[in-house]
């Protein structure tokens, strides 16, 4: 492992530099890389990108054995909001699909192409594009750096290592928490990146890969080639736990050995995209996706209903039309709701506390 660390330092640009510069040096032109070297290259990029934000990075020769971690974008010490107060309320209306709040136009096109590859569709058989998944993701990322749920973000963040022993750390510097790389997935989500950073860096990695492999950015590729790119992302190395669904709740965002821990691995970016495609396709349309309830029609899911009856549970299939929360009938204690009378409930006579 010490070898690998040395290599990272050697590839770290001394002062300024950007992901763009590093890319043009690292895998510029249309020279094709095999998959493995691609991952190595993006890994080095990731480390570089992470260090750039600590502006006064010393020259490689002067660096301590383990470089101090750059502060994550929204760690409590940095400039963005502190503790998360509340999960955002259900929106009263969907965001305007004509406005991009976060992505650049080109980023938006790339996200949409990726989403439409993950969940394809057509006007007759809507998929992520037709459902407005892009709109959902863009709106999500426009607030609180993309955090929509409470996340524990106090440092230190984990640093992966491979081999028997963790690398030595100077006693006077910051003390990272070293975790064996293949053990890390058991600890679940450990990323220091914000969702915005994951998208910004992930999209650059995808385009860089697309240019190196196909000589064009993702949005200019044929559908087949776009599928190959997504296939590469989905199958890229790195341990991954059961992402998505009630058990996984999205993918591991943190690093594997190949990329270091400062940028999403491609596969992690794929998992984030996939979980956001699921949310954009199947959450209530008030969140900006699932336009015209196309996701729910596809599944045969009636969405927000006030009540079902025991005979409906005992019958196969349903004739109920899907509806959004916005279409739910009003509901007050003492009034009928569907075929039930709603009895007084707790709180209808008082509000204690605050």
């Amino acid at each position, binding site marked *: 492992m010490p070898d690998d660390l040395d290599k990272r330092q050697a590839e770290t640009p001394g002062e300024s530099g950007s992901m763009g510069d590093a890319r043009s040096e690292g895998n510029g032109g249309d020279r094709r890389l095999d998959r493995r070297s691609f991952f190595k290259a993006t890994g080095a990029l990731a480390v570089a990108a992470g260090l750039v934000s600590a502006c006064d990075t010393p020259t490689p020769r002067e660096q301590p054995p383990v470089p101090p971690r750059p502060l994550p974008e929204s760690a409590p010490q940095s400039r963005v909001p502190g503790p998360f107060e509340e999960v955002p309320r259900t929106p009263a209306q969907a965001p305007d699909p004509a406005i991009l709040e976060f992505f650049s136009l080109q980023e938006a096109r790339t996200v949409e192409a990726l989403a439409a590859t993950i969940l394809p569709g057509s006007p007759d058989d809507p998929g992520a594009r037709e459902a407005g998944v892009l709109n959902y993701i863009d709106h999500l990322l426009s607030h609180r750096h993309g955090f929509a749920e409470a996340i*524990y973000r106090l440092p230190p963040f*984990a640093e992966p290592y491979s081999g028997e022993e963790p690398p030595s750390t100077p006693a006077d510097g910051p003390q990272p928490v070293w975790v064996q790389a293949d053990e890390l997935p058991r600890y679940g989500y450990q990323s220091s990146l914000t969702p915005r950073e994951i998208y910004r860096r992930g999209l650059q990695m995808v385009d860089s890969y697309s240019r190196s492999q196909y000589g064009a950015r993702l949005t200019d590729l044929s559908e087949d080639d776009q599928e190959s790119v997504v296939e590469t992302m*989905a199958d890229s190395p790195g341990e991954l736990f059961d992402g998505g669904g009630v058990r996984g709740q999205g993918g591991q965002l943190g690093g594997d050995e190949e990329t270091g821990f400062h940028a999403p691995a491609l596969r992690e970016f794929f998992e984030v995209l996939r979980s956001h495609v699921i949310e954009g396709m199947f959450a209530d349309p008030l969140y900006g996706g699932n336009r015209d309830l196309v996701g729910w029609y596809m599944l045969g899911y009636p969405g927000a209903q006030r009540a079902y009856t025991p005979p409906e549970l005992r019958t196969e299939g349903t004739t109920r039309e899907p509806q959004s*929360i916005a279409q739910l009938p009003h509901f007050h204690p003492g009034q009928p709701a569907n075929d039930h009378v709603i009895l007084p409930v707790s709180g209808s006579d008082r509000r204690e*506390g605050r």
Partner: protein
Amino acid sequence: MAIVHPKVDVVTVGAGWTAGILAWKLTNEGRSVVSIEQGPAQWAHPDFAWNHDSLRYSTRKAMMANISQESWTWRPDARRPSLPMRRFGAFHPGHGIGGSAAHWSAMLWRFTPYDFQYRSYYEERYGEGKLPEGSTVQDWPVTYEELEPYYDAFEYDIGASGRAGNLEGELIPGGNPFEGARSRPFPNPPLESTLPSYTFADAARRLGYHPFPQPSGILSRAYTDPFGRTRSGCLYCGFCTRFGCEVDAKSTGLTTHTPLALQSGRYEIRSQSKVLQVELDGDGMATGLTYIDLITGEEHFQPAELVILSGYTLTNVRLLLLSRSRQHPDGVGNDRGQVGRNCTHQIWENPATGVFDGRRFNLFMGNTSTIQVLYDFYGNAVDHGDLDFIGGSSLFSTIGEREPVTSVGNLPIGDGKRWGREWKEAMRRQWDSYVPITMQGESLAYRQHFYDLDPIYKDTHDLPLLRFTFDWTDNERNLYRFMRSRSEEIMRAMGATSSSTQEELPEYNLHAYKSTHMTGGAIMGHDPGDSVTNRYGQVWDTPNVFVTGAALYPQNPGANPTGTLAALAYATGDALAARYFRNPDEMLD
């Protein structure tokens, strides 16, 4: 300087269900009670009236404790580093009035007589060598028979739904034949079950097993409780676990005990207020709770005669460890090093999942209690003579309340691509046709599994997080394999078009939800040498501090903990009301 409030008789950590039960019992006796609750005030009306939002509640965990302020750290063993749970995974503690029970699934169990005599049972039947190495399981200081009147009272007070299997020793067909004797039938009939649950029950019966409907804390019909409060029956709306119930059909502290306590005028809840520690005097007795008003950031002190730690398991254990004084240098309850022992979790897995091509089961209706269950593999129902594990598991059919955002990610069932046209096709074909069989398995206590304070990670008030050191052992892995075979057997009999099996118990991890049933850490016992509290949750070394909830459990049965922690709170409430205040600060016996 802290703002000091007038002294009250009792102060509780949190305004969850056990706090509500104790507040109700004690205000009935004229005592004044204050609860310090870190979450918001919340009631069915209006807070839950428009909550059919899967993204906000199931994905983003709107009802859960604020993990950005305080989380928990985990490591698999003492040689490896601990890391915090940065986003909700393995368990889901709630906050706000009603606590975790405000969003519970309402699977309402009594533990069986065997659960309370765990160690004796195995030693007497199989000899001491049968217990796995390192196991620290022990008998409870209470028996099923002693708790039965409290289970019974609680079930009638909330209007439990179910079918009795054992009425005063007589076995009733269609109920759970392995349960302890009940003095009365359930006050309400069982809930409706999902369609595949009936297929599961038929298949199980053909194999000689004994399916029964899930006992539930959800009303199956309108019910007028003993206090004259009438509530609606379940609407089967499909937004239940991780949600508050908009019609109060799901029993929680909000529906019964907390409002009754508030009606007395002697109960106050301070919401958005987070307890930092138990204050102690020079004699080592508690004087009250220090807390932070999360809105203003001001520190407060609430003095009280009696302090009740009625938070989530992990909250209670952490507060014991954080509350130190010269008399209790290692924390309240920890004078003999007992705090943190017997940390357990639960095996909650789907060993087999079938797909029934062309069927539409309406699994988005109903809830987690709309199922059929088997206790044929639960603990003492199994002969462990030739088996390579002890303990057991319940096994149950497919729950309802399937929500797209939390389920389509699991598709396709079996082999196939998780994206692209293949994935989309699987959604169309399988989403309402796949049928898991689920197990909830016992988790034994072991010497090497414990809670302590993390040396590195802190909360936003700079106090150490609670760390748990926990992993599966061979006993759990072997139990899992046994249950996998039973699940496969039943799935075959159910006639699925295709099915897929999870061969082995996945390694323990922080990210996959298991259950919110973390237990132990402040276990109850017969004497101070083997436990933190007595049978009433009264702390041996600080007798004016009581602990409620699953932190008291010596080990973790394969059943949801809520029914038992409520029954224990009833017993404690009665003992406090009738006896404690006559001789304050003395141990109850």
